[in-house]
């Protein structure tokens, strides 16, 4: 193995407290082992933890925020526009990462930077401007309180150019809402794990990049030939046009049919009025255009406009499935225009739509069940489907007003304040669960329980396969599939590309090993790459274990054990605790971790370089 191209071998490290920016060379051995994206991020976060004796306040100046595209980001292959944000998460206090699409990662690479890390805290609200080789920290206190969209516009105006890419936070990030996101290209977000709150805590309103460098590729002709095959495969796929048309919104009907659609805070898993908020309704009544991340033929983004009624004039890119499910059925909202309005509001405020939908849903149910009193809600009633009250509560969360101040701190603080909410809110390790109901699929439960960032489907999404396989799926197969997903899906985040061509259109993962080979000149097999990705999974587990995680934390929300969905194909289904523990033991065994979920001592030695 040897790396011949694909990298600038430059790590840009910025200290906001000292106001310094330093370019550090990256060694070949580091590149080969950690690849990029989340791999670089996990290693830098691990080193930073060691330097701080494993005591890091996620919102303290010492928390290192890593921004890392991968070696494939921005080159000619399907959907190469991804970029990871990695740090200790303010939502979980553990390892956290989130990736964003759009064009930011490409532009960051074009400045000649493989990875950016930011530490410290700026004395006043500032913007980090990486302009090719030059890095400056520009105080811009005038951006205080500005929405993500306004801030992006103001920054471009101040710098006198539209030809930059901006990753910005909204008021949610400024107010360190623990599920604040980082927004780029106005509507693409690094949504989960609270990366926006870290920027807010650092007084860093935005990172702006402008670069013009060629992206290093070892064998351009080889890459182009491989990419053409992949593009051709995708364009000939029977669902390709559907993806262009509906994007992830086509999942609403599927999720409803299968009984995994979060409805009324997961009290149910089918939504009677799902046809009012599905992809077809969106295309027929609201959609005005397509939106794609860099080099993506699938263009899963939908630009929607509300043309009549009280939300007239609302323009938003989205929603995608998770957003629509969590801000729609999960809150009892059947008015697609209201969902669009809530999505736009979350984009402006810069808060994660999944966590927001989950927490608002839990609040409604908490009030319904009498756990939250009217005075807890600042005297404002809230109920399923009440659009005005829901939109107001979202505002209060981002602005930390009244009850919003507690909700903004996420699940842990809510449970601390109202212990009975533990039975209402769906979270794992402090991260709210995304929009697939695991009661229908124990392997999905295992995926949520063992995901390194909390209850998110990014690491493994086995629910569709389990429902196809049904009862015939053995425990071995379930665990193997979860582990395979946990190797492959994070590999996309290391390479800096999107996983949708693979998961949704079945593009062979073998292509990615070939892309990697043509870009870096490094003859590596898919198995070797998956091995490296698996090492990173061990590393993030090691980080979490050092921060106190063990078997007791690899668990599921109370409802998954105790409250089955009321109707639909999965009515009455829950996951049995014993079944789950059996599966978890098998999972640890296959991973080579001990009965308590702790990786063996030799794992740590791997990362002592």
């Amino acid at each position, binding site marked *: 193995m040897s790396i011949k191209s694909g990298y600038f071998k430059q790590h840009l490290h910025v200290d906001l407290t000292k106001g310094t920016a330093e370019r550090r060379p990256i060694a070949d051995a580091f590149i080969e082992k950690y690849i990029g994206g989340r791999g670089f991020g996990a290693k830098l976060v691990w080193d930073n933890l060691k330097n701080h004796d494993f005591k890091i306040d996620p919102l303290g100046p010492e928390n290192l925020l890593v921004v890392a595209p991968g070696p494939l980001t921005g080159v000619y292959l399907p959907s190469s526009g991804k970029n990871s944000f990695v740090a200790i998460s303010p939502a979980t206090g553990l390892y956290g990462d989130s990736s964003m699409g759009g064009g930011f990662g490409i532009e960051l690479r074009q400045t000649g930077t493989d990875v950016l890390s930011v530490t410290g805290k700026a004395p006043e609200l500032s913007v980090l401007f990486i302009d090719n080789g030059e890095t400056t920290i520009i105080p811009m206190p005038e951006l205080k309180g500005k929405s993500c969209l306004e801030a992006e516009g103001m920054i471009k105006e101040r710098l006198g150019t539209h030809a930059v890419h901006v990753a910005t936070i909204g008021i949610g990030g400024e107010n360190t809402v623990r599920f604040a996101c980082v927004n780029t290209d106005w509507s693409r977000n690094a949504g989960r794990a609270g990366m926006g709150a870290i920027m807010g805590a650092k007084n860093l309103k935005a990172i702006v990049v402008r670069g013009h460098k060629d992206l290093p590729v070892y064998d351009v002709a080889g890459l182009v030939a491989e990419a053409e095959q992949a593009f051709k495969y995708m364009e000939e796929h029977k669902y390709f046009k559907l993806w262009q048309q509906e994007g992830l919104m086509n999942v609403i009907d599927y999720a409803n049919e299968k009984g995994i659609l979060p409805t009324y805070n997961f009290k149910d898993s089918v939504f009677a009025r799902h046809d009012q908020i599905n992809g077809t309704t969106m295309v027929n009544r609201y959609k005005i255009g397509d*939106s*794609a991340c860099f080099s993506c033929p699938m263009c899963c983004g939908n630009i929607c406009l509300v043309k009549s009624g009280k939300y007239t004039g609302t323009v938003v890119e989205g929603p995608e499935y998770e957003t629509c499910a969590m801000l729609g059925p999960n809150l009892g909202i059947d008015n697609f225009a209201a969902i669009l309005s809530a999505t736009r509001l979350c984009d402006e405020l810069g808060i994660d739509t999944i966590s927001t939908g989950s927490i608002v849903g839990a609040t409604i149910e908490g009030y319904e069940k009498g756990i939250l009193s009217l005075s807890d809600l600042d005297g404002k009633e809230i109920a399923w489907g009440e659009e005005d009250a829901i939109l107001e509560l979202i505002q209060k969360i981002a602005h930390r007003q009244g009850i919003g101040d507690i909700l903004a701190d996420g699940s842990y603080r809510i449970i601390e304040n109202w212990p009975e909410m533990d039975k209402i809110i769906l979270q794992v390790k402090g991260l709210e669960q995304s929009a697939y109901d695991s009661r229908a699929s124990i392997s999905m439960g295992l995926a949520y329980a063992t995901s390194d960032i909390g209850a998110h489907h990014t690491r493994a999404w086995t629910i569709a396969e389990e429902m196809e396989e049904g009862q015939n799926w053995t425990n071995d197969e379930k665990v193997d599939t979860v582990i395979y997903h946990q190797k492959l899906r994070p590999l996309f985040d290391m390479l800096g590309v999107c996983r949708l061509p693979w998961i949704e259109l079945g593009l062979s993962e073998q292509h990615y090993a070939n892309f990697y080979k043509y870009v870096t000149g490094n003859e590596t097999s898919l198995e070797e790459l998956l091995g490296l990705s698996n090492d990173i999974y061990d590393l993030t587990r090691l980080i979490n274990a050092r921060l106190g995680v063990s078997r007791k934390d690899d668990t599921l929300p109370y409802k998954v054990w105790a409250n089955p969905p009321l109707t639909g194909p999965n009515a009455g289904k829950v996951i049995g605790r014993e079944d789950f523990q059996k599966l978890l033991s098998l999972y640890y065994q296959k991973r080579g971790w001990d009965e308590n979920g702790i990786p063996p001592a030799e794992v740590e030695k791997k990362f002592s370089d």
Partner: protein
Amino acid sequence: MSKKLTVIPEQCSGCRICELVCAIKHFGVNNPKKAAIRVLTTYPQPVVRMPIVCSQCKVPACAQICPTDSLRWIDGVVQLDEEDCTSCYKCVEACPFGAIYIHPDYDLPIKCDMCGGDPECVKKCPKGALRLIPEAALGESRRLNNVLSYTQMKEIEFYEKGEKKVIRYAEVGKEEL
């Protein structure tokens, strides 16, 4: 050449594959900043995704201002004579569409050469937002769309061999005449 590279911005998703394939074709590098076509995006007001590329004007503003006559309209393409060009970039400023580009690695202005009649960007656009159409057909779809949007369209549903069908027709209101 009687074919024109035309842009249908309503179809554009902003994926910038056109930029990448243009740069790869002409410079052999993965660098969208070396493309002769760029997608300009504005959002949210107005929502626009507009690929900007040379229109190969028959009376080219770039050629008129060029002090060394290095730009000439030949056989449907405004061609740059690389020998005579002094890289003054007057053409970049003069183009009414901003469709000529500059990159710091390279002295000459970067402009579309139609890939010798078979533009790479048209072939690779996944949305059909870039088209190569005969000059004579220019504006046809616009005309049709405009006519459809100016008139009041009505619908009648009817059944043919048991299958539901819809016919649309224009009815211009009497009061509007």
